[in-house]
């Protein structure tokens, strides 16, 4: 069995080529600040250009589903001991990116940033809680329990979007259906599959700064990762 590399970044580009364009843009910025970073890309064979192999040191195309959340399929197939999953629509803006893996709390299985309710496109609150864990950038380990969680995240999300999983809509809004953060919340709070979670140190927003966050979220520190949705007009 191939020995796993200690840590690396994982990008996923599927469904629309614009996500691959965005992933290239993001990975280029990552390599500018950290040329030695290990970067894996999951995408489709027919989209890959020769020069992508210079940017990504590992490109996986086999069986990658053409799916809006192909990321969930890819998570348990990481080649790293410690993985930073990062959405394609991100840009690295600071050399502190080299310290991102130090943010991982060893007592946990997954380290995330907190989503800000004011920045969400939907109301993330419900009677039992709130969707607080941002699933656009996180670090996770390769323990079998963690990878099993990721596998089940993919499985349950598919049931969710296919309408095969119905929940009590008096407790949990129906409009959560298209969100993987909801699937994650359910697995973490309502099942035995849950894994130990922790959060990036404050100001956590600098590690996953969503374009509509308030400036004060950074507490005067430099943004390391900026996160902005890909242009919808470019989607085919």
């Amino acid at each position, binding site marked *: 069995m191939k020995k796993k590399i200690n840590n690396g970044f994982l990008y996923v580009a599927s469904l629309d080529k614009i996500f691959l364009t965005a992933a290239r843009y993001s990975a280029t910025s990552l390599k500018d600040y950290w040329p030695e970073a290990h970067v894996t890309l999951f995408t489709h064979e027919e989209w890959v250009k020769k020069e992508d192999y210079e940017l990504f040191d590992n490109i996986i195309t086999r069986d990658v589903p053409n799916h809006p959340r192909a990321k969930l399929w890819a998570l348990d197939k990481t080649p790293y001991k410690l993985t930073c999953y990062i959405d394609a629509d991100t840009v690295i803006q600071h050399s502190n990116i080299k310290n991102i893996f130090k943010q991982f709390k060893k007592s946990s299985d997954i380290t995330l940033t907190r989503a800000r309710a004011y920045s969400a496109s939907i109301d993330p609150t419900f009677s039992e809680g709130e969707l607080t864990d941002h699933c656009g950038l996180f670090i996770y380990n390769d323990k079998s329990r963690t990878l099993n969680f990721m596998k089940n995240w993919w499985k349950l999300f598919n049931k969710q979007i296919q309408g095969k999983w119905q929940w009590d809509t008096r407790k949990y809004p129906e409009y959560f259906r298209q969100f993987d953060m909801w699937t994650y919340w359910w697995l973490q709070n309502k099942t035995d599959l849950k894994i130990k979670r922790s959060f990036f140190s404050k100001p956590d927003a600098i590690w996953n700064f969503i374009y509509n966050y308030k400036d004060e979220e950074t507490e005067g520190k430099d943004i390391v990762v900026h996160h902005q949705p890909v242009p*919808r*007009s470019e989607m085919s």
Partner: protein
Amino acid sequence: MDKGRIMQLNEMKPNRTIKNPHWTNDKKNQIHCEFHYENGPIVNACVSDTNEGNPDWKEIFNIFDIKEIEQNTQTVIKNADYQRKFKKREKKEKTDAEKLDNLFNRKLEAFEISTVKNSKDKNLKSLIRKASNETEVFAYTAVLISKEMKNEEENK
């Protein structure tokens, strides 16, 4: 009363429920309401009193008191205000999103230029990525390309 006359009256005043009456003006001499007919149709109506006495006007005031009509009027005003604000916000969000899309596209295009992509000048590349408008993207891209060309000249 003969059968034909009853039918005629029924046609003139079929079974209906009046809903949501509210003032249409500050003079309070006109009411807007909905007539919900038993067989399904809903008719929006503006009702005013007349010299002869409008039976619809009388009917409204027999069913509803002034307080209810005032409350309905306030609700209608609030809803219209909310709708106006919502549409305004929606329009602004759309415009902002389009601006962001265009800006991001310009950045992607800049990084499609091999001189920019392969440049080792982290600072200028970072400035292009952080640019907050298209002019900044063009300006920093031009500076970077010019710098790279100069470097190339010097290295010849």
